[in-house]
């Protein structure tokens, strides 16, 4: 018991440190919606200023040094917000997150340049006597640290809960415009949170440095590994829960240290490496997975990502460029340049995996290099066991894919920053648990996996003796894989990925399996990462796993964004900036700058690129393609062929039957025992006041929320146990009140996403090799003609006026020829003429194509003029139903919804 209490106190001290770092990050997140990966680096700078510059250098006393250092941290943070983030205010969230990674790199490099990278012990600021309490040795500074953290937590909690500015900060992250209308400046609020958040990072670092020692990287590890985990447990919102999260992690680590021997013996292992971090991270992992949702809620705001490339390939350009690189490689480059080339190319392969996963599918993973290491490990173990190198590599790549699927599990239940932090934790666990355990790596003799000198197809290609050959192998790998990724972009499978990236709910409504797409994206990206892992790991005779760490993963996401997250070409451009790659070589050998300058310049370059062009270098290049086209190295945009006239064929009708449908959210009855039917060729209106439960009913019918009770069937088949995707595939489609278009891609691709049906499971693989050029299905062509969208096919939705955007949304919904469509306020925002046109189109869907239409709409004119029957709900329950005339004359309806005004004039159908 004494030991338990002793370690509990140790865990509390460590947990308080984690929480103190995390609180600053949480405050920044609350104020700006951003995870600040530079929190630890800002703190590091403050700690060096306090201990080295002010105390050692200037002989300052403790308190003034502390105050100035904390102020300096706040100032750095403020300057970053003002100079960089403010410029990036309208950029995609990931771009702004990458900017914080750029700041992390810059500060670490500056600290390393100014102070060196060696760790330095420093004396404690806090009283550090030791006293004995019931046989337990208690170090005074731990108690102070816990107390300070609790005070900071309470202060932040009270500030954000009870002060106007605190409340405004919280509101600002969710809705800047609303806050602006209340007279607050979102910029000033963000600046305030960044300043205070940065200062808290500084305070945490100065207080923790005596425990950890001073180094350029320690606090980054602490923040990344434990601080963000604590923040995640607090949902990046709650200060008390973040404190609790820090304590859980700290105490978990301490207990794992105390009982590590017992645990290891229990599992009959020589060693379970990473044991102290494992329990807490597994707890976080499970918590996030359990508390997450398969599909986001209606209130979820989709995160915008940088622009997508077209995936078009100019084969001639690829061949010429590859030939030029090979000529330079073997004709001009010395071994050093060849080495820089293969480092950049391996990084480029890694960036391809990020292009697929994040660029195409919108899933942010910060564990890609961990997967790369797994790939290298598996392949290496096969080589070590005597299997041929070629087959081993193939097996390594293939067997990494299932591991990638494990990493996909959190993505099935969460998204955005939570996913990023969970994958970060997973990546760290792989480093600690797998890469630090010799049992898994091979013989204990090597501290890695011995593979000897690599030969491929009988040729000696090992990087250290034959760097040019290894660079050539890397080039071949990159070009081949880049072509696959480009194929993927143009394929039906690619459109599914992009649909999920753009909007999971909309994708599911079109019959796209969000689950399947995410698994697929993680699988493909894991395979690509494994190739990168082989290219990195197979350089020497022994695979070492130092390169496969979470920081490399974080940096790679940054490189991918710089290059162009949505572009295959972006991988090549981003990889030039990889540490040790071509960019480093240029800075060191050509510009003659050494000693951290490559890292400083690389980090500054990140800011420049992000500020100047947030979609990355590849986007700049493709938009200035004239030069490349002259050189015939760029693919020309495909001319859009005119669409054939479409035969409007009626769909095989199906009746949607809803019986006793009830949806309850806690104590709130959103839909109460609603029964209705939508028959083929019939338009049924569903009206009611705001909050009556109309959209919830659509959500429940289409599978976006679970029904508490009731039965839903389509043509007699019960569908209420099917997922949203399953229902959509049976021919039940919906549109969204808020449009939910895929804004990153053309109108044509929106329509295609809605009509890409019937592709076989094999297409998940074959699309990588033969994406094909599939004509629009006749139902989609009919929708394009019907909604007069042919001239807009090559435009993106955001280039269209609002009315046209509405039509794109409906066209997408009906493009596959569904039996029943549920339209959620399709006329919202349309003018009178557009509404009348829409009414005509909806009527044609029923009359000419035999679709059943459930129309939710506030435009009573439109409803009354279009619908065969109308159902009125209020407080979730049906209050009337019948023909438009019957409903219009119903006194209950008039009381509840229509009001006492004269009935509206019926529009001639």
């Amino acid at each position, binding site marked *: 018991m004494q*030991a338990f209490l*002793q*370690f509990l106190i*140790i865990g509390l*001290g*460590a947990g308080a440190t*984690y929480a103190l770092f995390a609180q600053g990050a949480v405050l920044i997140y609350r104020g700006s919606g951003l995870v600040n990966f530079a929190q630890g680096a800002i703190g590091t700078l403050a700690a060096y200023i306090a201990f080295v510059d002010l105390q050692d250098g200037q002989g300052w006393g403790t308190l003034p040094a502390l105050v100035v250092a904390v102020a300096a941290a706040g100032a750095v943070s403020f300057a970053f917000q003002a100079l960089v983030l403010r410029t990036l205010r309208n950029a995609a969230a990931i771009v702004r997150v990458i900017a914080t990674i750029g700041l992390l790199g810059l500060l670490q490099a500056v600290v390393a340049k100014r102070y*060196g*990278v*060696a*760790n*330095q*012990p420093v004396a404690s600021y806090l009283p*550090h006597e*030791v006293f004995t309490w019931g046989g337990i040795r208690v*170090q005074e500074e731990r108690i102070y640290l816990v107390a300070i953290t609790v005070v900071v937590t309470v202060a932040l909690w009270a500030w954000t809960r009870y002060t106007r500015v605190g409340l405004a900060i919280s509101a600002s992250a969710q809705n800047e415009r609303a806050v602006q209308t209340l007279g607050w400046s979102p910029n000033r609020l963000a600046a305030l949170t960044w300043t205070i958040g940065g200062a808290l990072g500084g305070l945490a670092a100065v207080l*923790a440095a005596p*425990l*950890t*020692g001073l*180094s*350029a*990287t*320690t606090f980054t590890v*602490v923040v990344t*590994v434990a601080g963000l985990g604590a923040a995640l447990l607090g949902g990046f919102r709650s200060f008390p829960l973040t404190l609790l999260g820090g304590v859980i992690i700290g105490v978990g680590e301490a207990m794992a*240290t*105390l009982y*590590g*021997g017992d645990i290891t013996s229990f599992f009959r292992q*020589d*060693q379970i*490496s990473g044991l*102290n*971090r494992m329990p807490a991270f597994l707890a976080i992992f499970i918590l996030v997975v359990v508390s997450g949702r398969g599909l986001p809620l209606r209130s979820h705001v989709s995160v915008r990502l940088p622009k997508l490339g077209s995936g078009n390939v100019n084969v001639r350009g690829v061949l010429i460029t590859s030939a030029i690189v090979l000529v330079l490689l073997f004709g001009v480059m010395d*071994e*050093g340049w060849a*080495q820089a080339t293969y480092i950049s190319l391996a990084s480029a392969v890694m960036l391809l995996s990020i292009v697929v996963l994040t660029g195409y599918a919108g899933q942010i993973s910060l564990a890609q290099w961990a997967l790369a290491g797994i790939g290298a490990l598996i392949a290496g173990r096969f080589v070590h066991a005597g299997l041929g190198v070629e087959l081993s590599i193939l097996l390594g790549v293939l067997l990494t894919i299932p591991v990638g699927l494990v990493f996909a599990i959190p993505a099935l239940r969460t998204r955005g920053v939570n996913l990023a932090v969970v994958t970060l934790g997973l990546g760290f666990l792989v480093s*600690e648990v797998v*890469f*630090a355990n*010799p049992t898994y*790596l091979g013989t*204990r*003799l*090597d*501290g*890695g996996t*011995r593979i000897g000198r690599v030969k491929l197809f009988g040729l000696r290609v090992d990087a*250290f*003796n034959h760097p040019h050959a290894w660079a050539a192998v890397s080039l071949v790998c990159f070009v081949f894989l880049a072509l696959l990724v480009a194929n993927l972009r143009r394929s039906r499978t690619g459109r599914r990925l992009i649909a999920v990236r753009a909007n999971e709910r909309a994708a599911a409504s079109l019959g796209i399996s969000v689950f399947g797409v995410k698994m697929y994206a993680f699988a493909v990206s894991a395979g690509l990462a494994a190739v990168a892992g082989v290219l990195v790991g197979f*350089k*020497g*005779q*022994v695979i*070492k*796993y*130092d*390169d496969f760490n979470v920081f490399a993963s974080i940096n790679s996401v940054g490189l991918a964004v710089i290059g162009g997250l949505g572009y295959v070409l972006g991988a090549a451009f981003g990889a030039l900036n990889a540490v*040790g790659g071509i960019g480093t070589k240029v800075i060191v050998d050509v510009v003659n700058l050494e000693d951290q300058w490559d890292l400083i310049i690389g980090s500054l370059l990140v800011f420049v690129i992000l500020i100047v062009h947030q979609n990355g270098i590849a986007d700049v290049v493709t938009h200035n393609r004239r030069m490349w086209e002259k050189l015939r190295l760029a693919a020309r945009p495909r001319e859009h062929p005119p669409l054939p006239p479409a035969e409007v064929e009626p769909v095989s009708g199906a009746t949607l039957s809803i019986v006793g449908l009830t949806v309850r959210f806690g104590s709130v009855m959103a839909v109460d025992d609603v029964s209705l039917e939508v028959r083929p060729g019939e338009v049924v209106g569903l009206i009611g006041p705001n909050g009556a439960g109309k959209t919830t009913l659509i959500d429940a019918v289409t599978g976006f929320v679970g029904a508490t009770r009731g039965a839903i069937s389509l043509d007699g088949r019960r569908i209420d146990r099917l997922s949203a995707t399953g229902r959509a595939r049976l021919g039940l489609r919906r549109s969204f009140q808020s449009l939910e278009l895929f804004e990153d891609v053309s109108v044509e691709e929106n329509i295609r996403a809605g009509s890409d049906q019937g592709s076989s499971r094999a297409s998940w693989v074959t699309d990588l090799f033969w994406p094909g050029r599939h004509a629009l299905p006749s139902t989609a062509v009919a929708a394009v003609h019907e909604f007069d969208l042919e001239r807009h096919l090559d435009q993106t939705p955001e280039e269209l006026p609002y009315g046209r955007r509405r039509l794109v949304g409906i066209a997408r919904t009906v493009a596959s020829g569904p039996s029943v469509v549920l339209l959620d306020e399709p006329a919202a925002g349309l003018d009178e003429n557009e509404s009348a046109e829409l009414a005509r189109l909806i009527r044609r869907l029923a009359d000419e194509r035999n679709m059943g239409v459930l129309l939710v709409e506030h435009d009573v004119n439109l409803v009354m003029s279009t619908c065969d029957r109308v159902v009125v709900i209020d407080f979730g329950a049906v209050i009337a139903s019948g023909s438009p005339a019957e409903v219009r004359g119903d006194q209950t309806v008039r009381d509840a919804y229509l009001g006492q005004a004269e009935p509206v004039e019926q529009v001639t159908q």
Partner: protein
Amino acid sequence: MLVVFSALGLIVGACSSDSKPTSSGGSNASSAEKIDYTAVGLWDDGPCDAAKPKLTIGLMTVFESPVLSLKDQADALTASAEAFNQRGGANGSCIEVHNCDDGANIDQAVACVREIDSAGVVATVNDQGTAGQADVSAAMAKAGIPRVASNVAQDDWGDPNAYPLDASGTGVTLLQPQALIDQGAKKIGLVRVDLAGASALVGILGDVYKDEGATFPYDAPVPAGTTDYSQFILGAQNAGVEGLSLSLGEQEAVQVVNAGKQLETDLKLGASLGTFSHKSTSDLGDFASKMALLWAFPPATTDLPVYKALRADLAASGNEALQTENLKSSPMQSWIGLYALLKMMRDAKMTTFTRQGITTMLQQAKDVPMLGMFGDENWTPNLDHPGLFKRAGMNHWASYAWDPNASANGLKGNFVEKSEFSFDKVLCGSPFGAPPPC
């Protein structure tokens, strides 16, 4: 299994320090002292002749990283070369040093070999690869560059191109328990780096020391980002150990020692003279008496005649890390290695410096006088040891305790030798040494 010795050896044996130049220009202890070089076993032939072909030597190691910072090792080689150049260089030729920072990075390490090769280095002295050792060793051998006084690791143990003076950091890892046992601790805990393979260390040490009745009931890895080092002291106390062997990098070792000091632990703490200098040990105050320190040759403050020259040569650089009070074993080894190389050249009357010529010389040299630095032992560079650790250099190792009342070279407090032991004898009968009788 041996990765324990390679990885840990690199870390544990290494020292780290700032290399800030000082304005003092030398140690207060020895710079002013007039040295009779012949009397201490050296020579003084006056300045080298710049017109003669140069002897180009090199060193590659990690200059600075969070775990290892060995720039002082490189600076010491440069300082030593400058000092020996004042006394005749290499048989009259001036010595030129080409150092390379491998950045603890495998790509940079291989680039370093290329750089050293293209710079015309004919031998390395006290080099210490910290990444990709297998490839670095192979590349050095392929280029024909002999590695004199190198810090051998797992990939070098059988490398005939390596000519180490001693088992350096690996020896520390392996022999540290002996130092603790000699100072009365038989229940020994291990606090080690969290590296692949390090987990095997506790079992290996159990095998090696079982005949001495030593047990190893506590084994704790120190992961990256550790925020509280006192847990290792308390954990060890909780396990009932008497001594703690610190197989850690310098900073982490210092943090654990500081935690022990704060908690006023009764544990004996085993550490390396590659980590603790006179000053850093002295700074521990009374707690320094809990330290059991270890290396193959004595600390810089030892009253050994040849050390007068060593101290003066290194201090003359003005580099703070090379002043006597701050000197750790690894920069000292640069001087000792260069001395041994020059001594062999002097004896062989070598005036043309080729890689092949130096390799041949190293293979033929026997009993190079080590002037008492390794006890009575002299150096035969090409001698193989029995067992796994073939290129372990000399057998002599010793443990030291801190005596606050002693003094040396004007410095208060000093290390005192507690025991001497032989590398081969400690390993005798274990799975790693020769079968008994040894």
